[in-house]
């Protein structure tokens, strides 16, 4: 605290987190363009916005749920990769390599089209009716697909964060009688979380954009609703310009929030 106050006394070194980020004007500009278009030329722009607004909520929902699941699954995978147990380490490494090695679009298609068929085939094999009649819920499969892929990348971020904490921290914790899990929970992870906040934020933005891929597996997200509007109205330029602007609003705001978190953790680290 005291050092921070000292720093603030030096001219030009005002605590960065208190300053308004200079790039918010870009966010305001894009929101302004969307508003002006919708107000001045309501047909088709306001119609597009109204038409895709339910898809916008789906996009946000898919992204948020998949992101939260990714945070947990990614942590488990990272701990698995750092485990002393060879089998756990081997299995999680195979998972990460597979999930990162296959295009996300192919993974989504697999979970939606192939996975339910496999379940049904297994059901026929063991003659278990509920499995035979298994039908995929598009929303659930889309979230499963996004989480499966993104958790692998997230686990690498966690792993890098955990490994960036000096070995002496773990030794000090263990020398006080903490178990491996206690040292992780109370000493290593709280420090690692600070380190990985910015890259995790960037993963959120990537996930938000990649969530548009779920439009090919029967989820009515904003991209899919855009395709539907275009098909019904034959207005490709207006439709995709508006969809692109709406995505930009979401990603630009997210990027500002990530940048704010980044500055905040840096000033806290002094």
């Amino acid at each position, binding site marked *: *605290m005291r*050092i921070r106050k000292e720093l603030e006394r030096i001219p030009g070194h005002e605590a960065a987190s208190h300053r308004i980020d200079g790039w918010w004007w870009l966010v305001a500009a894009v929101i302004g363009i969307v508003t002006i278009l919708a107000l001045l030329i309501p047909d088709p722009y306001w119609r597009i916005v109204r038409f895709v607004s339910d898809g916008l909520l789906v996009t946000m929902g898919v992204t948020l749920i998949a992101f939260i699941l990714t945070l947990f699954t990614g942590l488990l995978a990272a701990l698995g990769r750092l485990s002393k147990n060879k089998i756990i380490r081997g299995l999680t490494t195979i998972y990460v390599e597979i999930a990162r090695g296959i295009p996300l679009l192919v993974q989504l298609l697999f979970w939606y089209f192939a996975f339910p068929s496999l379940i049904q085939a297994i059901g026929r094999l063991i003659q278990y009716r509920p499995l035979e009649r298994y039908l995929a819920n598009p929303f659930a499969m889309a979230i499963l697909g996004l989480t499966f892929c993104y958790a692998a990348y997230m686990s690498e971020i966690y792993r890098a964060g955990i490994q960036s904490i000096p070995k*002496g921290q773990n030794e*000090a914790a263990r*020398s*006080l*009688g903490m*178990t491996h899990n*206690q040292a992780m929970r109370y000493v290593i992870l709280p420090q690692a979380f600070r380190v990985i906040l910015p890259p995790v934020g960037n993963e959120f933005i990537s996930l938000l954009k990649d969530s548009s891929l779920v439009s090919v597996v029967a989820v009515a997200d904003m991209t899919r609703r855009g395709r539907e509007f275009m098909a019904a109205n034959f207005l490709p330029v207006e439709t995709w310009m508006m969809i692109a602007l709406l995505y930009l609003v979401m990603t630009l705001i997210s990027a500002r929030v990530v940048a704010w978190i980044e500055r905040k953790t840096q000033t806290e680290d002094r």
Partner: protein
Amino acid sequence: MTPEPIIHIENLHKHFGETAALNGVSLDVYPGEVVLIIGPSGSGKSTLLRCINRLEAFQQGIVIVDNIPLTTAENINAIRTEVGMVFQSFNLFPHLTVLENVAIAQRIVRKRDKHEAAEIAFALLEKVGIPEKAADYPNQLSGGQQQRVAIARALAMNPKIMLFDEPTSALDPEMIQEVLDVMLQLAKEGMTMVVVSHEMGFARAAADRAVLMDEGLIIEEDIPDVLFSHPTQERTKAFLSKIL
């Protein structure tokens, strides 16, 4: 009848891959004793210390601490709660305040409640002379202050033995004495201590025994004054001539 040793090390071997670190070390430490380990860098003195609470695994030999053999994971954790350790680089937890640093293991490992842990932590910070820093974070403290917090953190577990791994080597010269003073006080109170250090003043004032190690072996041991002024081994003489 001589008392039982509180640390019994027998024929300890340790190697890192091809490199041998310990080549059959045997050492007994008795309750209340202060043992100083000296020797050139790479002689295995820190490794020996770290084998006592099993921060280093070893390939061969016996280590028994307070009648508990270092074998199973439960035993190792039991020993670690009885053995405090102070590191060259302090290793305070930077995300916790000074008070939390001293309190956290009490709460998690000793299962003390919040108030009791905080009271004990505060009392120990007074003992090491920096109660006014309780609410600060480690990176706001000088090296000497950090090391004193590290000592308080280890003491909070009520250890029977304290291990010091070059506790003053990372400190600026003017801060060494404040740390040594705390260690001297501990020694006076009868704490069993094993100290890897080249602080000859501390050795003369507090150590019951000085042990010289080289190439993973104990070369010679004696009461510090005798070892420093009348070494019998050539390697001891060579080493002492370099540091005295």
